[in-house]
């Protein structure tokens, strides 16, 4: 009986201690588990505004803290090259576990791209959200630094390419083919007699004569057979040094864009641009495979977009162009903007490394060379319809530079379009690709 009472007392005591401990723990946990989330919504979904309207945002700030949150929301407006234009703030008050929406209105701005940094400082929470918005980007004007012998240089390159026998090989790959698609490995000789390869995928359904989706690779990216296309013949070309075209050039991402950079005649992109033309030659000479040579559209992103622009600028056989985040566009402004980054990123990380290691190769020399390869300088020659996608947070290809190139396109105003993807960096989103698909169907009258 005495023992039983003792056990009961012991159990009760332990229970009280545990309950107290749990209660204390729960209290601590509640305090620690709060958070503040900030949802930033531009008045225009695309975050693109006109130069005669204010730039408006709504910020929904939600707190799950049990304690009220007091503080301020500061918003700094900067140019895209990080020059501060203005700083403003508004008081923030959030009761426990609540949400409030705050409106921010930024006065009209001149054409360009701007950074807006929303800085939230409250009782127990600090955060910064960085966004970019555009103002009348179609009014951005840049000076072309097109060398006087630009056309002659590229005509010479094309003439040299014509001297190279392509020796096309089209090898049926039964192992990769399906009931719906026939896959072919394609080989050909290109500029400097370098061997390049590509993948040709021909739908067996509806395949009398189909337009071509000609895809060019990103920076040292291996393109594989594109099996997702029912309405186009897919041709994916691996230019020299990419994917399965690394027999003669096989370098990594750190050096690829630097190969022979001090000599415009030998610079790797001269050969790469010619590889893209050779790919076009291949398509035009293989009508018998069901290729509709009057409907060839090039699609590419990043480095591929630069290649696509150069190809369409040099060759009128390109019917339609769709590009995303075009690398190297407006190279001089891209260099300028990137010089303000806290941390260097591709491609100027590589170019700056080279510049440090080779101080004799000055930036002036760099620009004199790169003016032959800057997509912006090919843009005026392009007359075909163009669709471009831009990620506003892109550091590799600053939006200003992409739009500068876009504004130099020789395409008629109604035939070119661009799409802003506000929260993307060096990429676009699924919605863009769905729109691109619709856009292509419109251009090619495909149901």
């Amino acid at each position, binding site marked *: 009986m005495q023992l039983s009472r003792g056990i009961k007392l012991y159990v009760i005591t332990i229970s009280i201690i545990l309950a107290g401990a749990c209660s204390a723990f729960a209290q601590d946990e509640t305090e620690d588990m709060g958070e503040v989330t900030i949802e930033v919504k531009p008045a225009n979904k695309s975050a693109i505004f006109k130069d005669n309207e204010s730039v408006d945002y709504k910020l929904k700030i939600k707190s799950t803290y049990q304690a009220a949150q007091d503080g301020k929301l500061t918003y700094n407006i900067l140019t895209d090259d990080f020059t501060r234009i203005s700083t403003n703030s508004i008081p923030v008050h959030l009761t426990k576990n609540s949400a409030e929406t705050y409106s921010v209105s930024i006065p009209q701005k001149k054409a360009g791209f701007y950074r807006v940094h929303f800085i939230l400082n409250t009782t127990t929470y600090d955060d910064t959200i960085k966004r970019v918005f555009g103002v009348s980007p179609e009014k951005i004007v840049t000076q072309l630094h097109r060398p006087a012998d630009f056309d002659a240089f590229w005509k010479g390159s094309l003439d040299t390419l014509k001297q190279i026998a392509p020796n096309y090989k089209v090898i049926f790959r039964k192992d990769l083919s399906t009931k719906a698609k026939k896959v072919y490995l394609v080989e050909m000789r290109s500029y400097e007699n370098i061997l390049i390869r590509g993948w040709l995928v021909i739908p067996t359904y509806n395949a009398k004569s189909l337009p071509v989706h000609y895809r060019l690779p990103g920076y040292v990216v291996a393109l594989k057979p594109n099996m997702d296309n029912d309405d186009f013949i897919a041709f994916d070309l691996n230019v020299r040094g990419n994917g399965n075209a690394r027999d003669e050039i096989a370098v990594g991402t750190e050096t690829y864009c630097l190969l022979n950079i001090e000599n415009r005649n030998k610079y790797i992109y001269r050969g790469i641009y010619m590889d893209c033309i050779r790919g076009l030659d291949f398509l035009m000479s293989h009508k018998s495979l069901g290729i509709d040579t009057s409907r060839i559209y090039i699609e590419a992103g990043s480095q591929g977009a630069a290649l696509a622009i150069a190809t369409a600028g040099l060759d009128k056989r390109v019917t339609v162009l769709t590009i995303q985040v075009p690398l190297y566009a407006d190279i001089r402004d891209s260099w300028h903007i990137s010089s303000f980054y806290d941390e260097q990123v591709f491609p100027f990380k590589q170019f700056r490394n080279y510049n440090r290691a080779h101080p004799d190769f000055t930036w002036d020399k760099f620009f004199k060379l790169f003016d032959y390869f800057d997509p912006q300088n090919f843009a005026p020659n392009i007359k075909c319809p163009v669709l471009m996608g831009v990620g506003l947070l892109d550091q590799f290809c600053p939006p200003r530079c992409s739009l500068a190139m876009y504004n130099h396109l020789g395409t008629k105003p109604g035939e070119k379009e661009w799409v802003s993807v506000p929260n993307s960096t060096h990429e676009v989103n699924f*919605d863009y690709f769905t729109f691109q698909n619709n856009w292509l169907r419109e251009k090619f009258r495909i*149901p």
Partner: protein
Amino acid sequence: MKKTYIICLSLIILSSAWQQAFAGWPIGKYRSIVIPSFNYYTSKDSWDRNGTKVKGADGSGFTSYAIGLYFGYGLTRRMDLLVNVLAPYQSSKLVTATGAVTPQNSSGLGDMQVGVSYALINFGYKSYLSIQASGIIPLYKNTNRAIALGYGAYGGEVKLMYAGGIDSKLFKGYYNLEAGYRRFFDFDGPNVLVYSASVGVPVPGRNQVSVEVGGQWASSNNKTFSQNLSVNRDFAFTKAGLNFGHAFTRRFSLFANGFYTFTGRNSGIGYGGSLQAIMKI
């Protein structure tokens, strides 16, 4: 004389057949869609004004065959021009008080619907909320016809459509929801609410199967009920349908559809079907 006509309603039922094959997605700028169709409907029994089933007299009945032509053209990315015409041939067998069976028939162009649809909002290009406004033009006069080819009145319709694709792990397919208001500019109207909901799934081999439930609810000052359903303007019915489609090419598909009107008021109890050739140009 006891008549068992089901006329206007049959045309109303048939005129919406194309929707099963091509729902509320924009056609796309510069592109066209042409849908010739053959439609069939037959009915013997009916529902009275209280929704009570009325058995048709022996030997009586109504049958309609209609050739339809739908044309759509993408004026812009959001706006389509739509034209829909039916040319019905319909026959009925009446049973008189003496028990004699009297066959009657009529044929000709029916109502033409002309309008535009406009995609108000797209949700990531996966689903669309659209509005459609159209006018109804009768291409006939009912005078001296044994069986009316319609109300013989001009009308208008406004309709909201919400269509989209479903691409989840559990289900891949599409849906289409529609609700609208139709008014015939006649003394007795009627005012008609139209509605439908359909869900479809792709089936291997470039096929698709969909189910649809839809109907109409019409109200009019004229509440009288007649066995001659063509004069009834205060009616309702709901039908359920099953559709099967096969895409022969990207541009050419065939759809077959069967339906049954399973509930109603002042309307016929019937079933029917259609065959539609969808040509995308």
